[in-house]
């Protein structure tokens, strides 16, 4: 089975370890992993800020780069949602690109979704001691509808005490360009999310969306909170001795 990696620009620059973790896990499971050279960005920041033409340009590039891939797997729920959910809408008036987007969409998966739904794997033989809270990103939950897969995987990690958050449905405040357009508001929302994490007793905050994680990690660090922020691929790979 061949998988094309959709690493995402944020992961590429700030969190390549998560991408590496993903690669190691997939290869361990016997997957042939490729990384298309032309890979850049899905255009989500442009789309969410109203720059439609610019988003479409990046979208067209994306569709061309991943044309013909059997599976496209991404360590970002929101970027996966952009391709699967938004591209068909974005290319509504372009029949050629619309067909291309519709053909690609069912083959694009978020990483944990791919593991549990396509590969049918939940137990990676991982162990990591600690109390962890999982942050479900808005786009992954509401747009992609993927809620259980990360939890299924995390529950199999030996020694990991997974605790729920008080307000799991509340946005962490990243919101893409919202984070810099309304920074104080964004940080206030981040603080509420971190408060939930801290009061849950978790020392590890794990998520499947690098955007949220960067925001929460950045704030936690500024506030000196004793919290380790990890991408789920990172946590699983580390726990399985692959990183």
């Amino acid at each position, binding site marked *: 089975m061949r998988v094309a990696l959709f690493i995402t*620009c944020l*992961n*590429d*620059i700030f*969190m*390549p*370890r998560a991408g*590496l973790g993903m*690669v190691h896990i997939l290869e361990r499971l016997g997957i042939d992993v490729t*990384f298309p*050279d*032309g*890979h*850049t*960005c899905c*255009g989500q*920041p*442009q*789309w*969410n*800020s*109203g*720059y*439609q033409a*610019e988003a479409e*340009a*990046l979208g*067209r*590039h994306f569709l061309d780069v991943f044309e013909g891939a059997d599976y496209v797997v991404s360590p970002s729920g929101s970027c996966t949602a952009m391709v699967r959910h938004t591209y068909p809408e974005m290319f509504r008036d372009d029949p050629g690109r619309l067909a291309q987007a519709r053909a690609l969409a069912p083959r694009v998966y978020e990483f944990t979704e791919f593991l549990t739904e396509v590969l049918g794997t939940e137990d990676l033989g991982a162990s990591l001691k600690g109390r962890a809270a999982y942050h479900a990103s*808005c786009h992954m939950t*509401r747009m992609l509808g993927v809620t259980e897969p990360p939890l299924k995987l995390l529950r199999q990690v030996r020694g990991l005490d997974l605790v729920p958050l008080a*307000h799991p*449905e*509340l*946005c962490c*405040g*990243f*919101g*893409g*360009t*919202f*984070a*810099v*357009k*309304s*920074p*104080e*508001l964004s*940080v*206030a*929302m981040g*603080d509420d999310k971190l408060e939930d994490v801290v009061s849950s007793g978790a020392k590890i905050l794990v998520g499947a969306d690098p955007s949220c994680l*960067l925001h929460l*990690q*950045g*704030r936690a*660090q*500024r*506030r*000196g909170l004793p919290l380790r922020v990890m991408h789920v691929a990172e946590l699983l790979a580390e726990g399985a001795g692959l990183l």
Partner: protein
Amino acid sequence: MTTPKRGPQTATAPRTAATPRPEAASKAGSRASFRRRALAALGDAQLRRAVRISVDEAGAARNQAVAQLVALAREGLVRGDFAAMRHRARDIKAETIGHLDLYLAQAAGAIRQRGGTVHFAAGAAEVGAIVRDIALTRGVTLAVKGKSMATEEVGLNAALESAGVQVVETDLGEYIIQLAGEKPSHIVAPAIHKSREEIANLLGRATGRSLPTDTPTLAGVARRVLREKFLQAGMGISGANFVVAETGTVCLVTNEGNGRLTTSAPSVHVAVVGIEKLVPSLEDLALFLSLLARSSTGQKISVYTHLITGPRGPGEADGPDELHVIFLDGGRSSILGTEFQDVLHCIRCGACLDQCPVYRQLGGHAYGGVYSGPIGAVLTPLLGGFAENADLPAEACSLCGACGEVCPSAIPLPDLILAHRRRMVREGRDHSGLGLPLRLAAAAWTRPWVYRASARLGRAVLRIARGTGFPGGAAAPATPAGPVSPAGPLAAWLNGRDLPPPASKTFHELWRERQQQGRDGQ
């Protein structure tokens, strides 16, 4: 609502870490409005506490009531689960709004047939003139009023006061903020930002007494004061939650009973109704009533649902002699035929406010208009002028999607926010400073080698910055961004957050190395 388990407001520990400093107001420039109000709200701990408690409670009650629809649907008591019901609700509204002139004409005919008088008002000035005229020709000096967002839109109270008619709000929350001279901060619970001490002060001043702060006493005082007004008033003013076109029935939904008293005791009843409030028939009304209460407060139905069809009948010893229904356009017709038409499906339940993480931080006043929360962010630029209000959809939304999920009319609120943002870009109104970077990135990143080069460059810049003690850098202490910082998105990010150390190698580079090693190893 089911008995709220609400106790005295407990203090939360102040944030120990440095909270980000607000950008200088001068820098905000023409975007001062939402931003400035939002910053003021963020600094008001009591307000935020009150808002949070209210919306968490209302949101939880709503979730519970909506979940129960599944079982009720199985029993055949409701038409379906939430998804099915809001699907139908959307269809009803699409039908109504799509034939709005027809249904308006039908409603007018039905109301007149029952002895009511129908007026059509283009906007605030017309509503004011019509109501003033009715009041003055009937010698009305005191009017009582039920909660109506439409009358807030047109500033009716002020228009009447200037004509010598005293107007008293009768919804408890509206009465409180009327005494305070403020605007409502939530569609359903207008006074959630007020503490009981403030309320006791306001009621005390109004009655010339010093009052304790317990709820029964305060409510009792309000009840007695307002009771007198109901009985003395020459006119009752209401809005309408719905108007049924087929029968000309005006439907008022309250929990307090002020809707019924306002429209039963005085001899003139004036209802100010946005033209979009129509539904075709009584069956359609039933569906919306089941959705409204559940979405709004988590109740199956509100305490009072009042169906008014014409003024009092012949021989009835109470009820208004005259019923006046004023259909208000107020900018709604300009939304017809645009990509925003679906916003006219709103039934003013407030569910989107209760679920919005931004509203939860700020309360309603930060939005600066009659409508707040997600519906406010979409509607205010449409009714109140796009240029002046474009900052709302631009800055007051993180696109989390919660609002779209809970809207009982299935209005695609997040999509409409995006539509506003696209319009802003088309009209050159994006002053966030992000336009250039986003455009450059799009142009550059369709060329993979440019993307890779820019990633390496950006990373190098950040590393240098961190090494030189740049705020947020590893060498710098954790303080809020100082006055000297690079403009734009980077400064905004660093105003409260660190940037993670950019990786020494991008994934692209790591991958290349891996492939290299793999080849070398063969």
